[in-house]
């Protein structure tokens, strides 16, 4: 057996359940690596080794007592720091929530505990999941394990980097406009956004309620399916959680006859040459394996960014109104309560969050509602119809996940619009509520991973995972990032 941190989740769970390795050994192997790597990549905001070991020892105790802790027995799972774990901080990488300790577990956390997983720290993100690079974290950016000068992507950059660097075999993120798939692509791992409603949002600190979904990160499609299986399904505490049966995620099969739609809009201007080349190579391999490549068009998808940057900030402006310094979190000074509100929010939120709150407040304000929010939701409905019509012709869609490979830290930080435009290929899935998965389709000449995005109809996760498994077998396998040079640790923390 190779080193424990190199193993996938399924293998680790099997080893722990089969008493070939203890959960504590698994935890220690990952802790050891995480504590060394985190100085370089800043994937974790909080990681309490003793708390991790306590959970692992409990798993070992149950196994010794003859119990089966579940399908993720002893498997470390890192959580994006916008998911609530009772008694642990949930900062959303924001000053305003820095002091907040939730008194309850998110639904997905309950599911993980019930499956025997070991909750493995809280990962970095763009503040309130608003961003595409984790540069908007109030606590500093996460770095790409493949090139420390570059972004790991965002907003779930910490989760993606942790899985890519072998600090955890699995992680959860949240995806509102690409926040799982984009960092997965930039870090060379599998990241997946489920159908809206498949996973309960209870305990996910909201960014944009009609778009947010929690989803898995893993190094293989199988492991991603294992994690999704654990967290999917109806939860009575989330009214948007769907009653539909959870699709069978274990389907296997070849690509023969699978109709793969390739939207022409996803290969337009702004797509980097090296990304295009790798994706086209991947599509060629799918075709070679029997898939039927179909050129399709989604003309409305070009408006995705505009719709997204109305809907998401509007919902966010309201979702973030609760941070007022009364019941939890930071409180600013103020002689009157009104002053306190403005001070708290002015101090507590970073620049990007403020921008989006203002944008959303504007879009909803009297006189502008119809022109912005009202119109955006109508275009969104039309986009969904267009997508549904497309899925009558094809089984899945394939495209690049991002227009470029990982960009340099600081490159887009001063240009919010340029940063927004990097979500162009991912927002459509959120707006239409459909599932989408990113898997690595190779590396650029600079050694940077590139993602292939597969999209399926609502509740089409069965087909999506089957296609992803088949594609994975045809594409270059995951490879580890090089060990960071000694002395390259960030000195700031």
């Amino acid at each position: 057996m190779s080193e424990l941190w190199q193993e996938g989740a399924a293998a680790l769970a099997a080893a722990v359940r089969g008493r070939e390795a203890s959960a504590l050994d698994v935890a220690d192997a990952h802790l050891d690596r995480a504590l060394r790597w985190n100085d370089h990549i800043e994937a974790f905001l909080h990681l309490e080794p003793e708390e991790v070991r306590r959970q692992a020892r409990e798993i070992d105790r149950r196994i010794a007592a003859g119990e089966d802790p579940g399908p993720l027995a002893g498997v470390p799972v890192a959580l994006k720091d916008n998911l609530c774990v009772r008694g642990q901080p949930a900062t959303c990488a924001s000053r305003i929530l820095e002091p907040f300790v939730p008194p309850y577990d998110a639904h997905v956390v309950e599911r993980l505990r019930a499956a025997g997983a070991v909750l493995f720290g809280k990962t970095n993100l763009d503040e309130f999941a608003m961003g595409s690079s984790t540069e908007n974290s109030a606590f500093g950016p996460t770095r790409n394990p493949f090139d420390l000068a570059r972004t790991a992507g965002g907003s779930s950059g910490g989760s993606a980097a942790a899985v890519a660097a072998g600090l955890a075999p699995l992680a959860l993120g949240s995806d509102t406009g690409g926040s799982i798939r984009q960092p997965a692509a930039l870090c060379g791992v599998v990241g997946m956004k489920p159908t809206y409603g498949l996973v309960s949002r209870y305990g996910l600190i909201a960014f944009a309620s009609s778009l947010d979904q929690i989803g898995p990160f893993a190094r293989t499609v199988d492991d991603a399916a294992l994690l999704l299986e654990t967290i999917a399904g109806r939860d009575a505490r989330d009214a948007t959680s769907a009653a539909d049966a959870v699709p069978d995620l274990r389907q296997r099969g070849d690509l023969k006859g699978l109709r793969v739609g390739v939207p022409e809009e996803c290969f337009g201007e702004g797509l980097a040459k090296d990304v295009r080349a790798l994706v086209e190579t991947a599509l060629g391999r799918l075709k070679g394996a029997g898939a039927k490549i179909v050129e399709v068009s989604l003309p409305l998808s070009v408006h995705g960014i505009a719709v997204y940057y109305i809907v998401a900030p509007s919902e966010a402006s309201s979702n973030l109104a609760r941070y007022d310094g009364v019941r939890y979190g930071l409180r600013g000074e103020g002689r009157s309560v009104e002053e306190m509100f403005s001070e708290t929010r002015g101090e507590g939120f970073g620049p990007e969050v403020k921008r989006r709150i203002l944008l959303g407040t504007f879009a909803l304000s009297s006189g502008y509602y119809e022109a912005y929010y009202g119109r955006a939701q109508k275009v969104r409905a039309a986009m969904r119809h267009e997508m549904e019509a497309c899925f009558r012709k094809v089984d899945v869609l394939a495209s690049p996940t991002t227009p470029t490979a990982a960009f340099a830290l600081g490159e887009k930080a001063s240009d919010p619009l340029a940063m927004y435009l990097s979500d162009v290929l991912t927002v459509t899935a959120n707006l239409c509520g459909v599932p989408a998965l990113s898997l690595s389709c190779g590396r650029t000449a600079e050694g940077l991973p590139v993602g292939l995005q597969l999209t399926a109809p609502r509740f089409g996760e069965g087909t999506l995972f089957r296609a992803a498994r088949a594609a994975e077998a045809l594409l270059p396998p995951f490879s580890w990032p090089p060990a960071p040079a000694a002395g390259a640790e960030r000195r700031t923390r």
Partner: protein
Amino acid sequence: MAIDPAEVLRIARLARLKVDPDEARRLAKDLDRIVHHIDSLRSVKLPEGAESLTYFGRDVHRADDARDCLAREDALRNAPMQDGEFFLVPKIVDKEES
């Protein structure tokens, strides 16, 4: 729609965000570019009476069953200021209730 610093300050008041004049100028520039981009939606032709999309589901409700609440100390634990019973805030100057 052009966004100037005065408009930023108006929205910031609505959103209870303290924004200083320098920040307002920067934000106005950013927001103006973003709004210019999202204004492209005006060119999208929509049929008369086009529907909106906010929801994917329908008809979810719960039975009227009461269950346990948080213990008071857990409810108050995260409060920046509390007296063991109440959440405390700076004086509320005037009452505006809905």
